[in-house]
């Protein structure tokens, strides 16, 4: 395994900038779609609520 350089190769920068912009834009799109006030925990709670009835205790 060839040792990798410590610094970021300069040729990565345009692609990194483009990828960051795409993902930041995704978050902005989501913010336009969703209601305010939910916490990340709501996702964990939503999963069992959306399970088919037969799997509920």
């Amino acid at each position: 395994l060839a040792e990798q350089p410590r610094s970021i190769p300069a040729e990565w920068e345009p692609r990194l900038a483009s990828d960051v912009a795409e993902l930041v834009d995704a978050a902005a799109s989501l913010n336009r779609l969703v209601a305010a006030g939910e916490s990340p925990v709501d996702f964990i709670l939503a999963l069992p609520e959306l399970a088919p009835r037969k799997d509920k205790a």
Partner: protein
Amino acid sequence: VTLIASSEVSARDCVADCLRRIHASQSTLNAFIAIDDARAMEHAEAADRMRAVGGRLGPLHGMPIAIKDMFDRAGRRPGCGADRGGGDTTRRDATIVERLERAGAIIVGALHMTEYALGLTGHNDHLGDCTNPWSPAHVTGGSSSGPAAVVGARLLPAAIGSDTGASIRIPAAWCGAVGIKPTHGRVSGAGAMAMSYSLDTIGPLASDMRGCALMLGVIAGADPRDPHAAAVPVPDYAAALGGDLRRLRVGVIDEYFGDGLDPGVEAALGEAVRVLRACGAAIVEVKALHADLARRLHRLVMAAEAAAIHARMLEDSPERFTAEVRYRLELGRRLPAKDYLAALRGRAQLLREFVASSFARADVLLTALVPRPAPARDRTRFGAPGFEPALLADIPKRTQPFNYLGLPALAVPCGFVADRPIGFQLVGRPFDEATLFKVGEAYERATAWHRRAPAH
């Protein structure tokens, strides 16, 4: 398992035969990082003694399996496919290891994986590549490269992998194995390497649906060691297999999620739909709401969390990461915290809307999984001469949305293109892995893809 339990075959002979074939395969497949001959034989002999005295046999009694090299085992330190340097060994097995051994499985070793599970091809510059059992010049897929290779090569009936964006399903499809990414929280992550806390799942790969169902039934369920492991009852997946698919609706999602498919893959998907209809299923068309947004949000969450998990090493000794992994971590380091949190805060609403729209008309969804068979290893090595990024760019777009949405997804082998395996994907409602297995097993019974084995 049936033959061992009924004394027709001893666990000792079965495990010894597997170990012999595993050792013979290493020079070509390179699927194992560690092979535990002595421990496996000791456990096999104990399994035979247990059967001889009429002891209670677990559902996996005497079954040889292996695990991706990212799970704690007492007294050992998993390598995680990386240059981790020195460090302490752990005192306790991962929960999945405890459950598998309690069920009678015999773990014969630790399996190859992509560096820190961050990659889709199965390349590994630290360990050497694991090769596709159907064609050594082609990739296995990753990051569960070793689990897919040993099951696809028919060296073992089952193995354990992990899936954060595609890492069970893509290698399963490219190596000719069944594999399931369970619902988020279905399987405990205690003692498993973390790659992305919000997206990681652990699941089995197996040579057929029944084996995959048995394995998931053993490892699934709540765990006091992992608060994210959900307290949702675990059905007997294997017992529910069989029968036809009348009263079941299979939703074909947006023409299979199909743009960019190889014509051979597209034809196989059409044939799979025909087979499922012949099994009694009603076929309906379904739109995948927010799927592309979910894919991009998946990338955001994964990159941010992976960068946080590896932040210290990225700061202190970045040269120990290979270029592909370093790129992914560097991307995560540059993402704003407010956007990462937005991606997590909107997740519940996107899930509710997706389930309401897609599962109103269907019990399971069918999508394409891999757009083409496994690509050549020398054209997919990050940054190397001959690297063709386009070959990989669209690979995970059919899998990542379901990690973000937390839904279960099953890889089903469905034929060959250019003599290399392909598969399709079934997606279910939260915690409805049972219906995925039922549909997959009906398809499997009506076809014979899972019975094929590569030439050795």
